[in-house]
C-alpha cells in the first residue's frame, strides 16, 4: 500500500528545547496509525507541524502528502488538503447547537445568508456517520464529553477529511464511550479515512493499530507493524521509556492503617444552577495510610463531591457534616480545607488546576505562598529552591522552572499540578483523575509517589475512571452513581464486574 503521508527529517526547536529531532514518520493510506511516547516526547508537536499550527518555515524538514511536498502556512491550508486535527481540549462552542457547531466556519450559505434547512439535513447525515442519535438542535453544553468528542469527529467528516488526527481522544472518556470511538475509527477506515491517533492507553492502541510509531525525546525510535505481530505491550513500553517495566503498579510493603482521618456524614450538595442534587447522602471515611478509590462513570458526582468537601461551593447548597480526626469542621472556602490539611488536584488542569500564563515555579508555590514568605514578602530565592526541588523529585521535563506552564506537554503539566499540592503538605490528598494523559513511565512514578505518601501516614483519595488503576492502587473502593454512593468494597472483594454493576445502578 502506498504512503499517504511522509514526514521527513522534521526538526522543531523551541527556546531551550529541541522538541523534534530529525523525525521520520510514514503513514500508509487507509490505516490506523498510533503514535505513542512518553510525556514531552514530541507527539503533539509533530501533529501540530503536520496540521499547520506551526507554519512552514517554522520547522525544518518536509511534509509529503500523496507524493507532493506541502508548505502549509495556516491550519486552513492543511484542512483544504483533507487533514483534520482534533485536539484533546474540545473546541466546540458550548452555547451553540450541535448542527451549528458541525458547520461552524463552513456554513451552507448564499451570499452570506445561512441556509439552515440544508445545514440541519447535512448535520443529521454526519451524525449518522458517527452513530450518534442526539437531536441536532441540542445545545452542546448539555451533552457529555463522549458525545462531544463524536461531534468533533462529525465536524471533521463534514469537511471531507482524508487524514484524521486525534490527540488523546479517549483521555477523558469512560470505557463505553472509548469503545464507541474506537469502533467508529474502524468504520471510517473501511470508508477509506486514514487516522493517526495519539494515546497513552496502550490497551486500545493494541486493539486498534495497524502500525505503531514510537517517539522518544523527539526522535523516532521505531515503527511496529501489527500484521507482523510486532505490536506487543511489553515492547511498546520498552521502546517508549528505554527500559523494561514489569509491574504497572508498584508493590506496597506492610500496609498499616491508623485512625479515621477524614469522615463525611450525610453529605449532600444541591446545585442551584442545575436545580438538582449533584451529591446525595454520601457517607465516606478514610484512615491514615489508606488509599481509597472512588470509581464511577463520568458525571456520577465524584468531582462535585470532591469540590464540595474542599469548600469550593460555587452555587451549591450543602448539608451534612465533615469530621477531621473526629472533630467537626466547616469548609466555607478552599482556604479552610487547605488549613485543615486537605489538598485537591483537579481533573481539569487547564480549566481550574493551573495558571497557564504563569511559570512553573509560580504555579508550584501558589497554594502555600506563606511558607516561602516572611511577613507576606515572598522570598524569591526560597521559591526557586522549592520549585527546583519538585522539578527533580517529580521529574518534570522543562528547560527551566521559569518556563510558562502553557508550554509544557500535558503530562508535565499534570506533574506541576501535583507538585503544587504536595507543597501544601496535606494530610489528605485528593487526586481527581491523576493519570489522565500520562505516560506509563510517569504513571508508575505517580503510583510510587502515592505509596510513599501513605507510608508517611498521609491519606490519598483517588477519583479515577480507569478501573485497572482503581483496582491496582486502592485499599478500599467506593462506587458512585448519580450523586449517590452505590457501594463500598474492600479491595479483596472488588472486581471490574462488581464495580461496573454498582456504577450503572
Amino acid at each position: 500500500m502506498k504512503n499517504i503521508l511522509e514526514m521527513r527529517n522534521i526538526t522543531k526547536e523551541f527556546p531551550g528545547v529541541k522538541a523534534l529531532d530529525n523525525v521520520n514518520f510514514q503513514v500508509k493510506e487507509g490505516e490506523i496509525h498510533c503514535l505513542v511516547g512518553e510525556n514531552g516526547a514530541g507527539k503533539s508537536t509533530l501533529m501540530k507541524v503536520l496540521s499547520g499550527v506551526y507554519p512552514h518555515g517554522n520547522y525544518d524538514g518536509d511534509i509529503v502528502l500523496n507524493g507532493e511536498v506541502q508548505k502549509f502556512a495556516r491550519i486552513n491550508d492543511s484542512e483544504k488538503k483533507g487533514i483534520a486535527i482534533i485536539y484533546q481540549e474540545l473546541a466546540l462552542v458550548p452555547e451553540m447547537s450541535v448542527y451549528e457547531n458541525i458547520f461552524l466556519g463552513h456554513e451552507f450559505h448564499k451570499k452570506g445568508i445561512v441556509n439552515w434547512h440544508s445545514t440541519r439535513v447535512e448535520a443529521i447525515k454526519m451524525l449518522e456517520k458517527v452513530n450518534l442519535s442526539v437531536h441536532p438542535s441540542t445545545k452542546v453544553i448539555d451533552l457529555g464529553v463522549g458525545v462531544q468528542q463524536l461531534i468533533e469527529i462529525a465536524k471533521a467528516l463534514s469537511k471531507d477529511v482524508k487524514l484524521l488526527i486525534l490527540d488523546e481522544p479517549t483521555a477523558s472518556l469512560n470505557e463505553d464511550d472509548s469503545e464507541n470511538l474506537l469502533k467508529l475509527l474502524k468504520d471510517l477506515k473501511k470508508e477509506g479515512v486514514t487516522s493517526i491517533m495519539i494515546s497513552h492507553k496502550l490497551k486500545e492502541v493494541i486493539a486498534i493499530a495497524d502500525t505503531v510509531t514510537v517517539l522518544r525525546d523527539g526522535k523516532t525510535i521505531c515503527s511496529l507493524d501489527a500484521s507482523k505481530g510486532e505490536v506487543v505491550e511489553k515492547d511498546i513500553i520498552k521502546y517508549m521509556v528505554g527500559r523494561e517495566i514489569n509491574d504497572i503498579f508498584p508493590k506496597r510493603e506492610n500496609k498499616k492503617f491508623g485512625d479515621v482521618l477524614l469522615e463525611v456524614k450525610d453529605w449532600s450538595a444541591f446545585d442551584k444552577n442545575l436545580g438538582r442534587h449533584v451529591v446525595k447522602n454520601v457517607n465516606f471515611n478514610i484512615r491514615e495510610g489508606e488509599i481509597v478509590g472512588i470509581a464511577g462513570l463520568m458525571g456520577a458526582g465524584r468531582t462535585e463531591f470532591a469540590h464540595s468537601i474542599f469548600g469550593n461551593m460555587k452555587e451549591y447548597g450543602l448539608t451534612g457534616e465533615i469530621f477531621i480526626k473526629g472533630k467537626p469542621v466547616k469548609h466555607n472556602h478552599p482556604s479552610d480545607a487547605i488549613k485543615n490539611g486537605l489538598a485537591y488536584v483537579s481533573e481539569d488542569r487547564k480549566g481550574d488546576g493551573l495558571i497557564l500564563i504563569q511559570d512553573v515555579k509560580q504555579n508550584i508555590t501558589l497554594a502555600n505562598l506563606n511558607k516561602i514568605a516572611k511577613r507576606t514578602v515572598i522570598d524569591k530565592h526560597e521559591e526557586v529552591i522549592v520549585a527546583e526541588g519538585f522539578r527533580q523529585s517529580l521529574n518534570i521535563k522543562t528547560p527551566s522552572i521559569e518556563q510558562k506552564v502553557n508550554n509544557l506537554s500535558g503530562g508535565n503539566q499534570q506533574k506541576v499540578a501535583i507538585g503544587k499540592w504536595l507543597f501544601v503538605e496535606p494530610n489528605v490528598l485528593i487526586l481527581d483523575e491523576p493519570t489522565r494523559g500520562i505516560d506509563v513511565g510517569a504513571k508508575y512514578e505517580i503510583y510510587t509517589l502515592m505509596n510513599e505518601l501513605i507510608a508517611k501516614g498521609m491519606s490519598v483519595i483517588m477519583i479515577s475512571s480507569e478501573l485497572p488503576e482503581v483496582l491496582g492502587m486502592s485499599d478500599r473502593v467506593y462506587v458512585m452513581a448519580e450523586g449517590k454512593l452505590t457501594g463500598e468494597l474492600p479491595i479483596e472483594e472488588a472486581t471490574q464486574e462488581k464495580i461496573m454493576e454498582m456504577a450503572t445502578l
Partner: protein
Amino acid sequence: MFKELRAALSENIRDYGMYIALAVIMVIFTVLTDGLFLTPRVLSDLIDMTGYIAVLSVGMTLVIVIRHIDLSVGYVAGFLGAISAILSFKLGWSIWVIIPATLALGAMIGMFWTGTLVARLKVPAFVATLAAMTIFRGLLIKVTNSETIFTGNEAFNAIGNGYIPDIAKVDGFHILTIIIGVLAVLAFVFMEIRNRKKLIQYKLRVSSMPMFIIKLAFVASVVMFFIFKLASFKGLSWTAIIVGVVVFIYNFITKNTTLGRHIYAVGGNPEAAELSGISVKFITYVVFASMGMLAALSGILFTARLQSATPTAGMGFELDAIAGAFVGGTSASGGVGKVTGSIIGALVMASLSKGMDLMNVGVSYQYIIRGLVLVVAVIFDVQTRNMKSKKA
C-alpha cells in the same frame, strides 16, 4: 555582542517596546520644537501634568489585571478633590489630616460601592462603575455648588505646584535633587547586581556581562540626564516624589508579596486561584479599594495643581488612565500587566499632549492622534504576544 543585543531586544520587545516608544516620541518632539520639549521647564511641567493620571493608571493596571475595569475613577477623583478643597477652605484643616481622610474616603468608596457590587452581587464592573461615574458627577456638582472652590492653603497647593526644598545651591543646581537621583541610581545598580548573582547561583538564565553593564549604564545615564535637567530648574516637584513613592510601593507589592501574587493568580485563572485557597472576592475588594484610594490621591494632586476644585474636575481622567495602562502593556485578557509599564504608558500619553501643545496643534487633532496612538499600542501588544506564542 550586537547579536545578543538584537536578540535581547526582539525577545523582550514587549517589555522594552513602550520605553522605545517614549524615547521616539520625545526625540520627535524635541526635533519638531527645536529643543523646546527637552527644556527643564517643560519637562518639569510634563511630570506634574502626568502625575494625577499616572497614579490612576497604577490602580487601573491592577483592576485590569483581575479582568475588570473602573470607569468611575475620573469623577470620584473630581469629587474627592472637591471634598479636600472644602475641608481645607471651609474647615481650615491641615493637609496632614486632609490627605489621610480623603484617601480613606476614596478607599471606602472603592470597597463599599464597586467592591460590593462586583464581588458580592456579581454586577459587571463596567456597569457598576458606569453608574458610579454618573453618581459622582452629580455629587461633584452638588458639593461644589457649580462653583470653583479655592483651597486657600499654600501647603496644599505645593503638592501640585511646589518643589522640594534645597539644602544648598551649587552652580545653580538643585543639590538635594541630584543627591536623590544618585541614591536612586545606586540603589538600582545594587539591587540589579544582587539579583543577578542570585540568578547565577540558581543557574537561571541571565544576560551576558557586557550586556548587563550596558543596560545598567544606559539606565543610569538616562535617569541622571533627566535629574540634571530638573536640578538645573527648580529640582524635583512634590508631585514627582509622591508618584515615585506610589510606584515604588505598588511595584514592590505586586512583585514581591503574597498579595501581589494572589492578584496575578486571580487575573490569570480565577477558578484555579479560588481552588488554591485564594479568595477571589477578597482580592476584588482589595483591588477596588486601592483604586478608590488612588482616585482620591489623583483628586488631591489635581486640586492642588489648579489650587482649586471645579465642578468639571476629573472629566475624562478614567480614559487617560485606561489608555496609560494599555499603552503600558497591560493585557485586556487579564493576568498580565506591570505598574512600571503603566507609568510609562501614562507618560507617553502626556508627552503627546504636551508636545502637541507646544507645537500649537489644534485640540481636535490632538484627540485624534492620541486615539490612534492608543490603537497602535494595543495592536503592537497583541501582535508581539501572538508572535511569541507562535515562535514558542
